[in-house]
């Protein structure tokens, strides 16, 4: 879907204004869409493919997509994005618990409204800050919300809230599009919600694509690259960062609201804690935040890992840590962002097998360097800096 540097010569197909795909890209997009739509059908055939995981992965990915707007354009690292994901989830849950609403759409609306309002409020505080201060301040706001949720008996403290009818632990799921579901029809409810999610996913990807390609997107990019200059071409920097932050919170709200509707039960640990913010951030980077589809892929992949490695080994943190390490060194543009590089790399090696020999050489050099570094380190520790 993303197609940042399409060359004019290639034959493209225009899906909508500003959205042109080459034939292979279109084919890939269609295959992807079909796969996504068929996940509920095919999950039974694969041991490790779970609709739950896939669905949640998409939702986390949507939150990461909102964050990618900040990362990619304004070059700001938000380390408190769980505030909007969790804010959305809680916003929806509060409507269920305190107002007694059981319409899924209203719950989602409340979720989006609540998290957008929160992003609007927090954005006012943080829009002036840059670099690591921005990261730390967003982190502080995120933790403050976590502290409020876990300390408030009204919000259920660590137990969180249920989004089932009456807010009860085994109530019926909310209604969707006027359809009522009983507890036993929860599977069907989730299926409907899944397809609804796909619809919203496609819509939000298109919207994000357009935002990134729009004059507003250009202005944000200008802000990211040189705030002073942006100011002196007449861009109201803080207001625009505030706006981008709010949009990003809006995405977090949709994702969090749908997450609440999917889980039907939410708590602070899983939606608001600082490491949740970290996960959202890393999903965006893992998939490739410079693309539209990257954060979604990052969301699905990391969620898949988190859900599955746990069943394989007790030491899943170790495994995931090593994988992230590899991402930094081997796939800096993320999985999706690097797909072109990987393809090119493979093609060169197919055409020119001698390259493989050079690879071995590079690897050798890297190893020798690492050993050398280690020796220097020991020397420094023993004898100090020169």
């Amino acid at each position, binding site marked *: 879907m993303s197609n940042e540097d399409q060359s004019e010569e290639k034959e493209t197909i225009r899906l909508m204004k500003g959205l042109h795909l080459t034939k292979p890209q279109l084919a890939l997009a269609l295959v992807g869409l079909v796969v996504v739509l068929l996940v509920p059908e095919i999950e039974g055939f694969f041991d490790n493919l779970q609709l739950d995981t896939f669905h949640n992965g998409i939702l986390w990915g949507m939150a990461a997509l909102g964050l990618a707007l900040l990362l990619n354009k304004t*070059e700001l690292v938000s380390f408190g994005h769980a505030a909007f994901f969790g804010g959305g989830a809680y916003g929806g849950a509060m409507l269920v618990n305190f107002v007694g609403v059981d319409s899924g759409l209203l719950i989602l609306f409340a979720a989006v409204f609540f998290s957008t309002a929160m992003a609007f409020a927090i954005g006012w505080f943080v829009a002036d800050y840059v670099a690591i201060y921005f990261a730390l301040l967003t982190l502080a706001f995120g933790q403050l919300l976590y502290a409020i949720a876990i300390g408030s008996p009204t919000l259920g403290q660590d137990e969180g809230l249920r989004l089932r009818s009456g807010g009860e632990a085994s109530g019926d799921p909310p209604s969707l599009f006027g359809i009522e579901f009983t507890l036993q029809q929860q599977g069907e409810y989730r299926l409907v919600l899944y397809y609804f999610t796909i619809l919203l996913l496609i819509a939000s990807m298109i919207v994000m694509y357009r935002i990134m390609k729009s004059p507003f997107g250009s202005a944000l990019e200008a802000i990211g690259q040189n705030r002073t200059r942006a100011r002196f071409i007449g861009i109201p920097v803080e207001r625009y960062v505030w706006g981008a932050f709010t949009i990003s919170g809006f995405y977090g709200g949709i994702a969090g609201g749908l997450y609440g509707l999917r889980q039907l039960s939410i708590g602070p640990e899983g939606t608001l804690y600082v490491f949740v913010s970290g996960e959202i951030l890393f999903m965006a980077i893992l998939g490739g935040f410079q693309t539209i589809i990257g954060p979604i892929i990052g969301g699905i992949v990391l969620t898949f890992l988190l859900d599955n490695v746990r069943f394989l080994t007790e030491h899943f943190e*170790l495994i995931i*840590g090593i994988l*992230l*390490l590899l991402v930094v060194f081997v796939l800096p543009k993320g999985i999706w962002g690097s797909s072109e590089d990987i393809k090119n790399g493979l093609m060169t090696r197919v055409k020119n097998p001698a390259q493989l020999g050079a690879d071995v050489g590079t690897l050798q050099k890297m190893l020798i360097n690492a050993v050398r570094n280690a020796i220097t380190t020991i020397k*420094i520790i023993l004898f*100090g800096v020169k």
Partner: protein
Amino acid sequence: MIELPLFIDLGDAAVHTLNGIFRGSILFMIASGLTIIFGVLGVLNLAHGEFYGIGAFLLTSIATFFVVRIAAPTDPLSTAIFAAAIVIAVLLSAAILIPIAGAIEATVIRPIYDRAEMYQLLLTYALLLILVDTIRIIWGSQPVRPAAVDGQQIHAALDVIPMEELFGFQYSSVRIFTIFIGIGTFLFLLWFFDRTKTGRIIRATAIDREAATAIGVSSDRVFTLVFALGGFFAGFSGALYSVSAIPATAEMGGTALVLSFVVIVIGGLGSIRGSFVGAILVGVVWSWAIAEYPPAEIAAPFALMILVLLVRPEGLYGAWGEIE
């Protein structure tokens, strides 16, 4: 049997404050490393809290090794020997972190200095996960304390040192010493960066990496040294905390890290003075918040941070990435 000190006499307010200063001293030793590493290397090390955790666990193992081999303190001499063993255990725990941190810097941190912030965060987060699990593999996932001495925790065995005669009031001697060590660390760091050659080289590197390289300083070595130094102090404070019988857990690094963020943001990133004042402030405010309004326990440090940032966006001693 050892007499337990009672210090009700001191008055609640003073005890709450001392409790806060104690915690602040521990926090300072973690945060100072974080802030120096950020100031010189420009990397916010998310795995920094794990150095603290590893220090705490190392102490449990090393102190246990000593405790089962050395006579329990009964008279001044045996108390002195015992105390010396514990001091050695603390220093040893912290010292082990020097090669650990140094090796981490040289192998995985060094290649990412020129990368964008988010990659540095991602990498150090990966390190955090790896180190947490390494702790679990070595020490297990349940809370660990050093072996008891005749049923007493180490600090209780050491609390026979008469505080009342020394200071005129009753308070845990180990805690008092920890506070002194915190202040000592602060003064040492000021002296180190101001007066010593190595300290000045580090500062020069922090201010202008290229200029420092031009005058013949190996920035690689400086970075390794600084990272190892940060690891040392984090481990040191973890070890000290463990001496006070606080159970070491694999997760302790996370909480310490987040609180250290609060401290260095309040103080100003890169400022040693700032992190000292910030740490004591966070500790005391936290302690008083619990005493006056218990539900504020978790939120207090973050609320304080937001408040400070609203009034002084660059932190109390805003140094912005240069060591001060």
